[in-house]
């Protein structure tokens, strides 16, 4: 009896220790996330202040270059290429300023309760014409339960658009995108409801461990030659953070990448009784 009691005590103690260890890891992650958000936020405030000062000279450069383009329409190939490069670079600089401004003034959240599946289906409808052209097959595995989340629909569309574009661009030779939604298990010590997750998995080139550490840093990009400016994932992360969610990226070089969005679940309808659901729209 005494031995059984000791075994029970050790098992319980081990469980508590594990839970504490997990809670500590969660706390560390939250702390790191907060530091990152603060960094992005100060960068944004700075960008907002100087955006106007940058956009005005960009306007002058673009008008000036376009004037040269018209005046030198009969110039040799080198001149034309040079003019075109200046024009492209000007527009690229403008895109960067625009991206930075999204940090500066994160749009006010206009949340509504929506069904997770509807959000995914709507986002996919935007991609149904692009994917076949790139030889990409999209598969969806949606949760059995009807999961409702409270989100800003426009901002979440932006999130999906970014993640799907990243997945498509990671597979220049084509491949498969798997989209999965599911309800996660509730952590034992958690006070809130179980969260839900949306995963976007591609069979693309993957990300190295070294790059994975920098993936949310503003201006970090592996797509320089494909004109990426390295703000897409930073913005996605900021949007998810603002929704009190979490964004995780798992990747194996040469095999593919999974982006996992974890969001608080506000309503779950296990049976098919949508009409009774007060949040159903």
């Amino acid at each position, binding site marked *: 009896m005494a031995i059984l009691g000791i075994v029970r005590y050790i098992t319980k103690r081990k469980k508590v220790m594990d839970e504490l260890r997990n809670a500590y890891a969660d706390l560390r992650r939250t702390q790191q996330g907060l530091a990152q958000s603060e960094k992005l936020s100060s960068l944004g405030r700075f960008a907002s202040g100087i*955006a*106007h000062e940058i*956009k*005005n000279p*960009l*306007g*002058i*450069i*673009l*008008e*000036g270059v*376009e*004037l040269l383009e*018209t*005046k030198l329409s009969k110039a040799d190939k080198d001149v034309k290429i040079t003019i075109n490069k200046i024009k492209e670079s*000007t*527009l690229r600089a*403008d895109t960067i300023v*625009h991206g930075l*401004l999204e940090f500066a*003034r994160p*749009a006010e959240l206009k949340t509504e309760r929506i069904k997770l599946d509807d959000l995914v289906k709507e986002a996919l409808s935007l991609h149904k014409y692009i994917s076949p052209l790139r030889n990409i097959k999209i598969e969806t595995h949606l949760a059995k339960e009807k999961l409702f989340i409270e989100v800003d629909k426009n901002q979440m569309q932006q999130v999906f658009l970014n993640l799907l574009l990243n997945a498509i661009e990671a597979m220049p030779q084509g491949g498969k995108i798997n989209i999965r939604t599911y309800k996660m298990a509730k952590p034992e010590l958690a006070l809130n409801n179980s969260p839900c997750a949306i995963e976007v998995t591609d069979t693309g080139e993957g990300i190295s461990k070294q790059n994975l550490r920098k993936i949310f840093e503003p201006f970090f990009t592996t797509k320089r030659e494909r004109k990426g400016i390295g703000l897409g994932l930073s913005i996605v992360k900021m949007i998810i953070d603002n929704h009190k969610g979490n964004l995780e990226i798992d990747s194996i070089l040469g095999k593919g990448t999974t982006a996992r969005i974890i969001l608080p679940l506000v309503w779950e309808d296990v049976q098919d009784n949508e009409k009774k659901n007060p949040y159903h729209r």
Partner: protein
Amino acid sequence: MRKKILIIDDEKDFCYFLKANLQLISNYQVLISTKAKKGIKAARKEKPDLILLDILMPRIDGFEVLKRLKESEKTLHIPVIMLTAKNENESRMKASGLYSDDYIVKPVETEVLISKIHKLLSLKK
């Protein structure tokens, strides 16, 4: 008859290049005013077919210019395109509330600008 466009913007170099582009590509007659007050006077005197108006200008800003243009019987019918580096929703809403006809953020490709000008001028007919 050549259509007359008035640019009200304190950025002299921008005005210079934009004027040259508009005249070269679309044969518009282009007038420039780099001071807001003078711009309002020019609008009353010259009666342009369309005004391109900056927002952030010293002393009188573009919103005030727009308000004064829309308050005067002489100028209220002239379509106004806000052409500005200010890319904020509040500014767009404010300009729209003051009856601007369009809102374009700098830098803008001349072809895009011209297509918007054409559209407004054809609506005016």
